[in-house]
């Protein structure tokens, strides 16, 4: 509700924040512009909504204002209607599920291999010497360049999409996780040795627990890549999926459906992100830093 009104006038969040600004008047810069210092929670929420409001406002001005033709830049209401239409009449939910399913499988496979391998690379110099050069090399091959090859190998069904996600996520994720375990402070391990821990105990009772928060944080980042690669793969060739729907819409110049599809991807991404942040808070209440 707040968001809708803010888009019309742009004044609502401003007036809502006004009393807080009023009180803080003597130290406005102290309060909001000190590098790295936290700002009041309410101010943060307001600014976050304001960010959305500005984008939506700009979009509204350009579309309702008739600056661009409706065909090229449909208005927010048209897009919302197209989104509703997609779900109500075109069975879009099946495409959303098809995409989500591919993401989940590709991501889980990447994580299941990437986490242990990454931790091993970061912890043992011998494993690092063996794997890291290869992974660092493959990492620089764009996953999207593999799509033609993967289509020949697997066709255009789920397997190919999952393979694209795997190539796009597994390699960089493994290296990031290797970094996490490599950055566990040595003093932490040394302390454990001097407390009588064996090598094995140091690994399982200290190095692993010390790595988990960083691992989860990187999984969250990897999830973002997974979406990018999936949509690319679906745009190239697919029988269903969000990317497929977007491509179809493009063929018929249905920009409203394209934008609706893109926004849905954004919303699903946001939901996954929120899930990971929630998980982080629940699993690691002791962690010093809050996940970015």
């Amino acid at each position, binding site marked *: 509700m707040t968001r809708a009104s803010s888009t019309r006038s742009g004044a609502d969040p401003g007036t809502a924040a006004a009393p807080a600004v009023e009180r803080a008047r003597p130290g406005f810069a102290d309060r909001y512009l000190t590098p790295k210092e936290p700002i009041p929670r309410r101010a943060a929420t307001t600014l976050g909504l304001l960010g959305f409001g500005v984008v939506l406002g700009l979009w509204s001005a350009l579309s309702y204002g008739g600056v661009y033709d409706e065909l090229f830049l449909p208005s927010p209401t048209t897009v919302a209607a197209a989104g509703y239409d997609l779900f109500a009449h075109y069975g879009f939910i099946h495409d959303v599920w098809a995409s989500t399913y591919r993401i989940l499988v590709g991501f889980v496979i990447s994580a299941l291999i990437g986490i242990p391998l990454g931790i091993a690379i970061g912890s043992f110099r011998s494993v690092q010497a063996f794997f890291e050069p290869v992974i660092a090399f493959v990492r620089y091959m764009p996953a999207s360049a593999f799509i033609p090859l993967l289509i020949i190998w697997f066709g255009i069904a789920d397997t190919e999409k999952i393979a694209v996600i795997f190539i796009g996520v597994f390699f960089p994720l493994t290296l990031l996780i290797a970094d996490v375990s490599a950055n566990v402070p040595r003093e932490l391990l040394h*302390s454990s040795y001097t407390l009588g*821990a064996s090598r094995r105990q140091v690994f399982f009772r200290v190095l692993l627990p010390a790595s988990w928060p960083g691992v989860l944080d990187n999984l969250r980042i990897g999830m973002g890549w997974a979406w990018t690669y999936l949509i690319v793969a679906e745009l190239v060739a697919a029988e269903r999926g969000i990317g497929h729907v977007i491509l179809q819409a493009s063929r018929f110049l249905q920009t409203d459906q394209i934008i609706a599809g893109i926004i849905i991807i954004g919303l699903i991404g946001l939901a996954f992100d929120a899930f990971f942040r929630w998980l982080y808070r629940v699993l690691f209440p002791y962690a010093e830093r809050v996940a970015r």
Partner: protein
Amino acid sequence: MSAIDVDRVTMVFETRRGRVTALDDVSLEIPDGHFACLVGPSGCGKSTLLRIMGGLLRATQGMVRVGERPVERPGADRGMVFQSYTLFPWLKVRENVEFGPKLQRVPRAARRKTSDALLREMGLEEFAGAYPKELSGGMQQRVAIARALANEPEVLLMDEPFGALDALTRASAQRFLTQVWERHKRTIAFVTHDIEEAVFLGETIYVMSPRPGRIREVVQVDVARPRALEDERLGDLRRRILSQIFEGEGAGAV
């Protein structure tokens, strides 16, 4: 009987710029129950020597014995406390203290008794269930000391444990450590570059010279406890040690 016997230890590091001799033929004996401080400028190898005592590094030549046994690897008989905060962040304060005993498979009730007693001694009973991040730096170091003591080690090796604390917290941590030492009568080898800290805490000060690290002088601090930081005799000793460190070198070398 000496608790720590460093016998002609030489340590050479291979670095990209060639061989660096960090310790050159260092020998010293720390008697049982003694509080010894190793002081010297940065790069004199004092931390290296402590790590060799702890078994975290192997000497290139010579050997270290703790309680007559040659040191080959780290062990629960030599507790260490580091400058950086090394508590396990995912364990609560009590679990941190019980980490060592748990590894030695000490039964739960006995572990609990140990941690209760130590936390009470450290004045941290009410923080038993807190995570390390909820503690100040000084409190974290007290927990680290408790964690090392929970193993009932023969010796306590401390590598600038108060180096990261502010001046006031450090002063109280020093007084606190003195009390702990008087109660537990463990042998302590304490590394610091702060000479004032060394003369306040130690009974014997080993003054080291920079690269290659050698023992330049052994100073006895015959000042009864409790000592006062502003005691003139400590001040004299501090000045004497300082001049020894500078002796024979350009001031820029330190």
